[in-house]
C-alpha cells in the first residue's frame, strides 16, 4: 500500500497507508469458436490515406479514384500491429514539428474562451514530509455531503502500527459520532485539493469514519463534481 501523511484536529501528523479498493471485475472474451482473444493496437490508416491527403492528391477526381483504385486503403500497412508509439506534432506540411509550445485553451461551459495558459501538470501531494493532509475543521453532515458531491473515488486509510491504529481509530470515532464528513486539504495551508499521484486529477476530499466494536474504517472520499442542476 502507498503512504499517506495525515494530521488530525490537534495537528498531530502520522504516516499511514491507504488502500484502493478494486471495483472492476475481470472479464475475458472468447470467439464463438472458443478461441481466446486479447486487445492490441492496429493501424487503421496512414497519413497518405487520410481524407485531407486524398483531397489534395485527387482534387475533383477523388470520387472516381475511390471507386477505381481504392486509394483510401494502404494494403501493405493497414492492420499492422502497433507498439511503443510516441506522440509527435506535425506542421501544416505534415512534417514533424520541433520546439513545440503547448498551451491549454480554457473554455467556459457556454463555449467561450476564458484564458490561454501554459500547459501544466499536477504533482502528488498526499505524502509530503512536513506537509500532511490536514483536517480543515469544516465538517458536513454525511447526509448533506452525499447529496452535494459526486464521490468518484474512495480509499480506505489503514494503520501501520499500534500507534497509528489509535490515531486513525480516534478520527473515525469522532466522525462516526458526529455522523459527519470532514473536509481535508493538502498543500502548505492544508486547504488545497488532493492529488493522489503525479499527473493525477486534483480532487476535493472528505474523510468519513465508521466504528464497529474495536474495529474502524476511515474512508477518504474524493470528488471533483458537485451535484448541480444543468
Amino acid at each position, binding site marked *: 500500500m502507498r503512504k499517506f501523511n495525515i494530521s488530525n484536529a490537534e495537528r498531530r501528523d502520522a504516516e499511514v497507508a491507504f488502500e484502493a479498493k478494486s*471495483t472492476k471485475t475481470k472479464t475475458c472474451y472468447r*470467439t464463438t469458436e472458443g478461441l481466446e482473444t486479447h486487445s492490441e493496437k492496429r493501424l487503421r490508416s*496512414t497519413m497518405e490515406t487520410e481524407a485531407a491527403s486524398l483531397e489534395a492528391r485527387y482534387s475533383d477526381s477523388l470520387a472516381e479514384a475511390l471507386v477505381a483504385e481504392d486509394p483510401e486503403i494502404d494494403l501493405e500497412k493497414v492492420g499492422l500491429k502497433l507498439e511503443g508509439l*510516441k506522440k509527435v506534432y506535425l506542421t501544416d506540411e505534415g512534417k514533424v514539428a520541433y520546439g*513545440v509550445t503547448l498551451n491549454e485553451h*480554457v*473554455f467556459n461551459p457556454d463555449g467561450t474562451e476564458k484564458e490561454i495558459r501554459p500547459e501544466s501538470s499536477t504533482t502528488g501531494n498526499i505524502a509530503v514530509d512536513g506537509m500532511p493532509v490536514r483536517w480543515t475543521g469544516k465538517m458536513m453532515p454525511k447526509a448533506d455531503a452525499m447529496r452535494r458531491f459526486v464521490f468518484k473515488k474512495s480509499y480506505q486509510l489503514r494503520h501501520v502500527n499500534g500507534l497509528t491504529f489509535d490515531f486513525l481509530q480516534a478520527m473515525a470515532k469522532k466522525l462516526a459520532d458526529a455522523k459527519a464528513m470532514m473536509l481535508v486539504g493538502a498543500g*502548505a495551508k492544508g486547504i488545497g485539493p488532493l492529488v493522489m499521484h503525479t499527473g493525477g486529477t486534483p480532487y476535493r476530499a472528505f474523510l468519513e469514519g465508521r466504528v464497529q466494536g474495536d*474495529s474502524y474504517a476511515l474512508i477518504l472520499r474524493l470528488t471533483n463534481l458537485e451535484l448541480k442542476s444543468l
Partner: protein
Amino acid sequence: MAKEFTFILGGVPFSAAPVKLERKKLYGWSDLVATDRDGHICTAAYISPEDSLLIPAGAAKMTTVDERGLIVKKSDLIAFDADGKELEIFPSSFDSPIDLSKTATEEEFLDHEWASVYQIQNPELAGIVGNTIYTFPFSYSGGTNLQDGFLMNCPAGLFLFAGTPVDFSPVNLNEEAVIDETEEDVLEDIDELDFSMI
C-alpha cells in the same frame, strides 16, 4: 426526442429523459493546443519507433484479435468472468421499466464509486421519492455491464447514480498495513474551495 427511462413507483409509471452530469457542462473544459516556433498550430500524430511511420491521431485503433492474430468483430465475442463462467447479457434500462421497489440506506449508497450520474427531470416523481433512496440494477446501453443504480433527491434535484459497489470493511489492531510505495516530495500552491479549477 431524447430517450426516456420509465420508473415504476407504487405501480405508477413515470418517464424522464436523463441528462448526464459532466464537469464540462458545469465548469467548462480545456484543450491542449500545440504551436511550432512560428506560432502555427500543429496537429497531433504518432510515430512508430520501428519504421518511423507517421500515424495520424485516431488511426491507431485498439482492436480485439484472436489467438491466430485475426481481428474479431465485437458481435462475435462471448464474455466470461474470471472463473470461466459465461456472463449474462442484460437489456438496456431504456428498454424495460425500472422498478423502484427496493430502498437503500445512506451507507449502502455511499459504498459505491460512481461511473455516471444523470439528472432526472420529473417533478412529480421527485415529489413521491421524497427522502427515500431507491436502488435497482442498471445498464445504460445493455450488455454484460450491469451496475447498481440509485435514485435520490438532492438539493439540486432528482439524480440517478450508476456505479459499482466498494467494500470498506472495518479493520482491527491486528490488521496492520505495510507501506511499499511512496511518491516524491512535492509542493503545491494553495487555492480556494473552487471546483472549476480542479
